[in-house]
């Protein structure tokens, strides 16, 4: 059962610890700086903090002493374009993708049997792999060179990006990624080849002829059940989807109140039928419905949902929860939610009730249990 979590915010990385009676912030690192993502490697305890310094670019730091010191390590870098290669302009923007790192958007440890392997998803769409715990990185060329990659579209940001990386706990060669905007991609040979999946996903923001094109699906977050790796959940731009066949086909789950719109999803590590979502009103109104923060939980594979609100603000609350702003611990009992308004809530009973850790942090980008 986790007793610590890390909260990456626009102005620092904060540690939250479980005390004798409650959770409280115990430490701040990088205070004042923009920490866009954090990840703890459960195999060796390495902590990672991705930064966006604006002027000075994207940086990556790693701590090997529990967050006391944070030496800078190398960031993934894009190679030079091959001679004579002319990148294809995207029809939405008229611009070709620059081969330059714009954001670190996803971090995931490799399998238990491959120490040192860390995956990194980025904007503008490159997937990188390190085999030495982040000392060096290599762009996955089979995915980057896939002709469909150049058709990935921008999302709320200017560039497409890989935000979700799911490594199958039973077979580390099986890696699934979520792309915004570019659907779901899977490798079963450790990244040598990739297949796009997504049959059944629907993009209502496209004309009917393109609505079911797997490459235009705006996957906001993709998660995989640890105990049952064939089950995936997706919070999508216009709905909730579930796959029980290794992401090959997807079923849309409709009529979820108060809304199917949101960014984050977490799945119970032991029970593939239990998943949590943090709904927001809709795309063009990204705040809780009626100013009430709620968490939606299904315990039956999406047939029904409970709207959980005990301990969460129920009036004049406009917190948005980004895709990395929800996490569940290894027991499935403890959940943490961090919002754009700087609120952090933790539940110790699977979401039935919540305690407020802070309402004063900077906007939260990422929460992760230790």
């Amino acid at each position: 059962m986790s007793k610590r979590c890390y909260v990456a915010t626009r102005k620092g990385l904060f540690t939250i610890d479980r005390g004798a009676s409650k959770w409280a912030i115990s430490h701040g690192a990088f205070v004042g700086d923009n920490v866009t993502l954090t990840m703890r490697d459960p195999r060796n305890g390495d902590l990672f903090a991705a930064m966006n310094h604006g002027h000075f670019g994207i940086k990556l730091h790693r701590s090997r002493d529990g967050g006391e010191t944070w030496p800078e390590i190398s960031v993934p870098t894009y190679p030079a374009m091959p001679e004579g290669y002319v990148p294809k302009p995207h029809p939405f923007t008229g611009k070709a993708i620059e081969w330059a790192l714009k954001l670190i958007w996803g971090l995931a440890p490799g399998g238990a049997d491959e120490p040192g392997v860390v995956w990194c998803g980025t904007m503008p769409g490159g997937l990188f792999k390190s085999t030495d715990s982040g000392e060096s990185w290599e762009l996955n060329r089979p995915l980057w060179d896939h002709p469909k990659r150049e058709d990935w579209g921008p999302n709320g940001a200017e560039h497409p990006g890989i935000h979700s990386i799911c490594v199958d706990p039973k077979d580390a060669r099986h890696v699934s990624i979520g792309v915004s905007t570019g659907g779901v991609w899977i490798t079963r040979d450790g990244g040598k080849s990739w297949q796009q999946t997504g049959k059944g996903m629907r993009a209502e923001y496209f004309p009917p002829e393109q609505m079911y094109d797997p490459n235009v699906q705006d996957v906001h977050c993709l998660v995989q059940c640890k105990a049952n790796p064939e089950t995936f959940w997706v919070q999508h731009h216009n709905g909730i989807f579930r796959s029980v066949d290794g992401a090959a086909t997807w079923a849309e789950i409709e009529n979820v109140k108060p809304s199917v719109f949101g960014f984050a999803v977490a799945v119970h590590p032991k029970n593939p039928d239990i998943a949590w979502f943090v709904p927001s009103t809709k795309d063009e109104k990204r705040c809780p419905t009626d100013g009430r923060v709620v968490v939606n939980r299904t315990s039956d594979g999406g047939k029904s949902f409970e709207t959980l609100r005990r301990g969460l603000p129920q009036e004049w609350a406009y917190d948005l929860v980004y895709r990395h702003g929800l996490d569940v611990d290894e027991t499935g009992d403890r959940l943490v939610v961090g919002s754009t308004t700087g609120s952090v809530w933790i539940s110790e009973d699977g979401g039935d009730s919540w305690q407020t850790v802070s309402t004063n942090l900077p906007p939260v980008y990422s929460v992760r249990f230790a």
Partner: protein
Amino acid sequence: MKAFSAQAPSCLKSIESFGSPVYAAYSGGPLPTVRFTQNIQRHVACPTRVAQGTTLRAVLDNYFHANERARGYVLDEQGKIRQHMVAFIDGELVRDRETLSDPVSENSTVDIIQALSGGSTSL
């Protein structure tokens, strides 16, 4: 958006507090001097130094050769000046941000500062 003046802004004065340039293992004639914004020093030490070269590319390559970590704070991986960084040569704003072909003379001073844009990531 406010355009940058072709003249070096007054904030460059603070850079002068770094003192005289370092002439490391060099006994020849004058060389261009490279100075950096104070803000970058919080992340990576960039002392004022001389560096050989007749173009901005050559001068910066020589500077970063001895300070490789600083390169990524100023240039992206393709060697372009980062979107929200600017360079001045003797107070004149550098125009060629991609190939860094602007000429530098032996008595020039190159200033690397952050643009007023680009700070919104930590607002």
